[in-house]
């Protein structure tokens, strides 16, 4: 079995959408069902990067779990001097992988800034949303673009993400590799 280890509920929902899209495009075997059970939310980035939170998963490694893909946000250095921004996030996940010492195939994917930034960047209406953000000065309230992506999700309860956008390519490749 494979496992995707992510931060929380939003990632969980988003990943299920992209996995369904990959399966519809026959990039993931159709016999794989219930993607939810392949995704393990850890309850935030700090938990995801804390080796003490892996007691249960440690028991499953090499028995039930044979491949792992970590997916999380790099966030901002201002908020987290140790693991904020892309470079620090890479160092923290590399340290975690070393500490966990799992003798299985492990990979990771880090969202530039965060999932909300990532999604807004791929929208066809990106410019409109960015104008909205600027006009309402949303970044002042929340620099993570959570508000902007929430507006998008509110407008489109079943978000029509454009998974053909090039920004998704690397993530799609890693997910496809994981399930094959």
């Amino acid at each position, binding site marked *: *079995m494979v496992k995707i280890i992510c931060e929380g509920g939003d990632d969980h929902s988003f990943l299920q959408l992209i996995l369904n899209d990959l399966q519809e495009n026959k990039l993931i075997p159709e016999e794989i069902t219930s993607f*939810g059970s392949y995704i*393990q*939310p850890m309850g935030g980035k700090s938990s995801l990067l804390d080796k003490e939170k892996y*007691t*249960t998963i440690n*028991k499953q490694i090499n028995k*039930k779990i044979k491949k792992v893909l970590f997916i999380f946000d790099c966030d901002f250095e201002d908020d987290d001097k140790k693991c904020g921004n892309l470079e620090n996030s890479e160092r923290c996940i590399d340290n975690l992988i070393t500490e966990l010492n799992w003798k299985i195939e492990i990979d990771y994917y880090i969202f530039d800034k965060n999932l909300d930034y990532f999604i807004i960047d791929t929208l066809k209406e990106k410019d409109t949303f960015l104008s909205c953000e600027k006009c309402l000065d949303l970044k002042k309230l929340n620099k993570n673009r959570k508000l902007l992506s929430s507006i998008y999700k509110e407008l489109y309860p079943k978000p029509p993400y454009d998974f053909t956008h090039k920004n998704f390519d690397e993530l799609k490749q890693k997910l496809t590799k994981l399930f094959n």
Partner: protein
Amino acid sequence: MSNHLLEYIEIKDFKCFKDFKAEGFKRVNLIGGKNNVGKTAFMEACYVNTYSYKSENTISMAISDIIMIRYNQTFFQDLFLGKGIEYVGNRIINKIKEFDSNEIYSNIQNIICSFEKEDLGVRDKKNRIKSFVGSSKISDDKLESSYGFIIENGLEDKIDKIIKLVDSNIKSFRIINSEPKCNFLNNPKFINIHELGDGLLRYISIIFSLFICQKSFLFIDEIENGIHYSKLDKLWEIILTISKEQTVQVFATTHSKECIESYARVSKKLEEEQKIDKDDVCFIELGRNDNVLESITYNYEEVISQITDHQDLRGW
């Protein structure tokens, strides 16, 4: 935990097990895994192990019990088809060989004698307090035998109250002229429970066993068999609370996601209500790697978090 509980097991050369270890068992242990992975065999090994403190002879008795529970229907069918005691005896020997244990072979003859002498399994079990509830329907004979224990110990009213938790319309359960019957609040006439479906019979056999196995062990194969998913919470509530009250260690197998979720949900509720302890709950997941059987044991917190996170614990 009380010292009579089985907390770990090592299984070597037993059925599908070559060299297997599992630990961390608690009072109530639910075992999950894919079809034919070895869930029942694991439970059978635990059952046999609970007899191991006595002698090889008691181990053989335990194995003969299992064989009769798992295969008796087909043995009796063969007898009725006129295939004769010799044919059935050979089949029993073949089944015993599946257990693949050298220590057991020395006692095969004793087992066969016991089968023949006592008419294929109708054996005095007065001193036997461990119970193995098979996946198939319990016979009226066995239910009647269990009911005898309930009567002797004055537990009829208590049993009626527990059965009411399953179906609030039922007033009482009795065995009348060797037939299991119950009557209803709005109808005093006793009706044969076979007319009411297999679920109630399954419930009653489990409830009886929880009392019969006081300070001992209860093994339930495919626990969800015949039970509607909406009644699983009630079943777990009964098992978790009565097993604690009666000091019974329970092992049960399932491959039902609903059953595992119900187990986690009810355990959490009862723990929050302080009716059980965290130390009463365990889940054992079985799977195979390169055809070698392995296990993962989850404690209370791990079961709850895995189910809350929608993880699949039905084996690999």
